[in-house]
Every structure is written in C-alpha cells, then in structure tokens.
C-alpha cells in the first residue's frame, strides 16, 4: 500500500469542520472555557458568548456539548431553527421527549415543560443567534426568565449584534464572554498542536516563528482564515510533490512564497 503523503494528511487537518475532537486547547481559551463552564453551573438565566467570525465560538460550543465533565444536560443547535413552531417542537422532542404534531406556540410549549419533571435545568446551546428575529429572541428571554431552560447563545460581534446584546439581554445576561483572535504565539501553538494531534510532526516543525508571523500578518490570528490558508498551503505543497518539483524546494520550514501563494489563492491577499 502506498504511503499517504504527509502534505495530504496535514492538509486534511485544516479542513474547517466544527468537531470537538479537533479542539485545540490554548491557555487563554482554556481559561475562557473554564469560566464558561462555571457560568453554566451558576443559576444564570442566559450566557452570551460573542466574538468576530472565526474566533472559535462554534468550536467552544461543540466542546462544551461533548464534555463529559459537565454535570448538566446540554442540547446543541449549530444551525438556527428559524421557524418558531419548529423550534419549540424540536426542544420538546429533544429535551422532554414529547412528540407534537401541528403548530406549537410558546404557551403550549410551557405546558409541556410544566408536565415534565426535570431534575436539573437543561442547557440549550444556540449558535449563530444573530439570525433569530428580535421577537423570537424576546420569547427565548421569556423561556429563560421562567427558569425552565437555560440558554447559552453565541453572537457574531458586529454593530447590530452589539445592539442586540445591549438592548435585549443587558438585564438578563449575567455573564458574557468575548472570544478574540489568537496572538502570534498562540497561533503557533494552535497550528503545531493541531498537526501533532494527527501525528504530523514533520510538518508541525516546519512552522518557525518567521513563517507563523507571516501567517499572523495575513490572517490577523483568525482561526477560520488560518485553517483556510493552511489547507491551501498544504495543497500547494502537495501539487509540487505530485509534479516532482519538491526536491528543488526547501522543506525544513514553510516557505514565505508558498504562504503568500496560498493567501492569494484564498483571497486573503489581493494580487
């Protein structure tokens, strides 16, 4: 059997998938994760997790959902359920094991909640909450006020979403946590840990401070952009390898030229 190329293996590491097993523990994120866990264990009504796109909100939510150390039941919804009735029906089905046919509104849903006797308050993890309408968000607030379901919602940090955070939730949210882009040193650890997790040691050592700084300059430490860039970077190495041109190149460290080529291809650099 032919050996799989190290570049192909490394390329697949950076597929932009939200998978808890790919979660890379960085010191700063670990602290945030811990405080998020503690917040959920407190009798809070709502917790807000916000940050710019690609800062790892979905990944953190996923990690929280799969974490076996969490004492409460969590229900993760990465894709927003925009139809109100469908939303209640999904919650009734997943949390209270109640099948409901026909339209389901807030009052009917509250009745289902009252009938079921839960030992602990379930936690609903809602990703991309900026896609819900303001009316709908108001009903989610009512649910959390009734202390029947605890919500952890994530928002993209934009002007409008800041407004949502301020106007709708400022009195109800007890804790809000902001996720930020990685620093250059964090980015280096992120890249190397991600590669080493899948035994790509050779490619992990290719990332020197110089090359990581170049990547940081292009992606500004954004995890999604970094994944996209590195996926293309290894794709380029793979193309060189397939056309037998790799021997002419230095492979002990990532070439700045190839980083720039990957950035051009992904649109992170304008050429």
């Amino acid at each position, binding site marked *: 059997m032919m050996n799989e190329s190290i570049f192909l293996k490394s390329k697949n590491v950076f597929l932009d998938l939200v998978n808890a097993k790919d979660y890379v523990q960085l010191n700063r994120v670990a602290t945030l994760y811990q405080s998020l866990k503690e917040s959920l264990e407190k009798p809070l009504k709502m917790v807000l997790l916000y940050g710019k796109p690609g800062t790892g909100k979905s990944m953190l939510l996923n990690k929280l959902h799969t974490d076996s150390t969490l004492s409460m039941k969590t229900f993760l919804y990465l894709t927003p359920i925009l139809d109100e009735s469908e939303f209640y029906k999904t919650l009734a089905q997943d949390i209270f094991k109640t099948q409901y046919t026909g339209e389901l509104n807030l009052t009917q849903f509250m009745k289902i909640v009252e009938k079921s006797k839960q030992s602990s308050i379930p936690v609903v993890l809602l990703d991309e909450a900026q896609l819900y309408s303001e009316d709908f968000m108001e009903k989610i607030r009512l649910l959390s006020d009734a202390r029947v379901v605890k919500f952890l919602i994530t928002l993209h940090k934009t002007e409008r979403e800041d407004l949502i955070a301020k106007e709708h939730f400022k009195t109800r949210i007890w804790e809000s946590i902001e996720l930020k882009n990685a620093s250059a040193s964090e980015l280096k650890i992120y890249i190397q840990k991600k590669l080493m997790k899948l035994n790509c040691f050779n490619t992990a050592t290719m990332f020197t401070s110089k090359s990581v700084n170049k990547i940081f300059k292009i992606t500004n430490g954004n995890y999604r952009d970094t994944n996209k860039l590195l996926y*293309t970077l290894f*794709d*380029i190495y793979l*193309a*060189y390898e*397939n*056309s037998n*041109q790799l021997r002419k190149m230095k492979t002990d460290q990532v070439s700045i*030229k190839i980083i*720039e*080529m990957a950035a*051009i*291809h992904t649109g992170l*650099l*304008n*050429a």
Partner: protein
Amino acid sequence: MLNIIELENRWLRYKIKSYFPYFIITIVLIITTSLLFSSSKNQTLEKKLPPKKEPVQKIIKPEKNIQIKHKSMMLSPSLDFINKELNSTHSAMKQKMLDLYQKRAYEDVCQIGFDYFKKNKRDEEFVSLYAFSCLNADYIDRLAAATAVLKFSKKARANSAYFSLILMQKKLLYHALVDNYSLSSFKLPSTDYVLSRVFELYSKLEEHNTHTFYLFEDPLNPKIRYKLYLSLKSKRKKMIIEEFYDTSSIKRHIYW
C-alpha cells in the same frame, strides 16, 4: 488540483506590485539625496573658491599701435599647383583631388591625400594640394607631415614655412588657453589664415587670468570679429574659433 504555474504567476505579479511603491520611493530618495548632495557641494565649493571670473563680454579692440604686421612679416603660400594646368602625366587620382578642391570639398581631398601620402610624398604638387585641403578643413595636425617633405623647390619651402607657422600657432594658442601659457613675449610672422590672425590678437594681450571666452575685432575690418574659447563638452578640450560678420556667425573652426 491547483494550477501551480498560474498561481506562481499571480504571486510574481503580486510581488512586483508590492515592491513597486518601495522602488519608486527609493528612486525618489536617491534623486533627492543626490540633488541635495550636489547643491551642498556646490555651496561648499562656492565658499572655498574665489569668485568666478566674469566671462569677457567686452570686445577686445586692437590697440592703436597694433597693426597688421608689415608685409615682410607675412608668410604667403604658393598656390601654383592650382593655377597651372596639370600636365598629362598626372594621375587620375590627382585630377580627382584637384576637381574636389575646386569644388571646396577640402575634407575629402585631405582624406584622399592622407590615404595616398606615402606613395606621393615626393610629388610636391600633390603634397601642397593635400596640405592646403587639410588646412581649409581645419585638420592642422596633418600639416606636420607635409612640412617635412616640402623642401625641394623654393615655392615648396615657402609653403612648408607657412604650414609649420600655422601648426606652431595652433599648438601655442591651445597651450595658452588650456594651461594659461603666456604668449605675450612671442613675435612671430603671421599669415592670412584665421588661426594666425587670432593668434596675433591674442598674443598682444597682456598677461591675464584665463577668460571663459575672448572676442577680438579684426583691425582691418571692424565688422569682422573672432570669438575664441575652449569647448569642455568632450573629454578632450577643443579650441573653437568662431568668425562673425556683423554679429552673424560665418564659420566655426574646431581644433584639438
């Protein structure tokens, strides 16, 4: 699969585009620095050097006692070779030279004479024809060979003296202009050739610092003026004499 060649081309374009502003800035900086440097250098030099001599704009008029030399001091060449009919024994080449001379194609005749000089150096008519052509074309240095061989007849010796005087005057005047050599002590015969006339006017000047140019008025005709100066455009300094008639330039002689 990625198109690596296309991507490499895009990368190359990107690099050129990204370095272009730096390239422009560098060029601008180099130009600015060199301009600043040269202006500061000029300022320093201006401080160190004595004030520049003003070019001579005043026409140097001949003093009352400067007259064209006495006839006995004038050397006259013999142009017999033109006046007398060429006998049949003369070669076609010599005939061609004479025809060209009469058409005032002096430079061509000088060149033919130069090319066939060795074969015809004993033919004094040929040598005189060659030497006068070179003189009219301002190729003064070529007169040296002619003066050496013109010695067998009286007319040939007269021409030899005529050519050697002009050659010497050219050398002396050039030496004076380039090296500020004084000519005031020289009392040489003169000729009707422009260089001799300018030499005579120049040698009448008292010792002086070099001027940018000299303007002389012909003592025989005040409308005729000569401008003498050195051209510094090329590596080798060239001596220029411009003839003016009523402020209009008639002829420009270049000697080096």
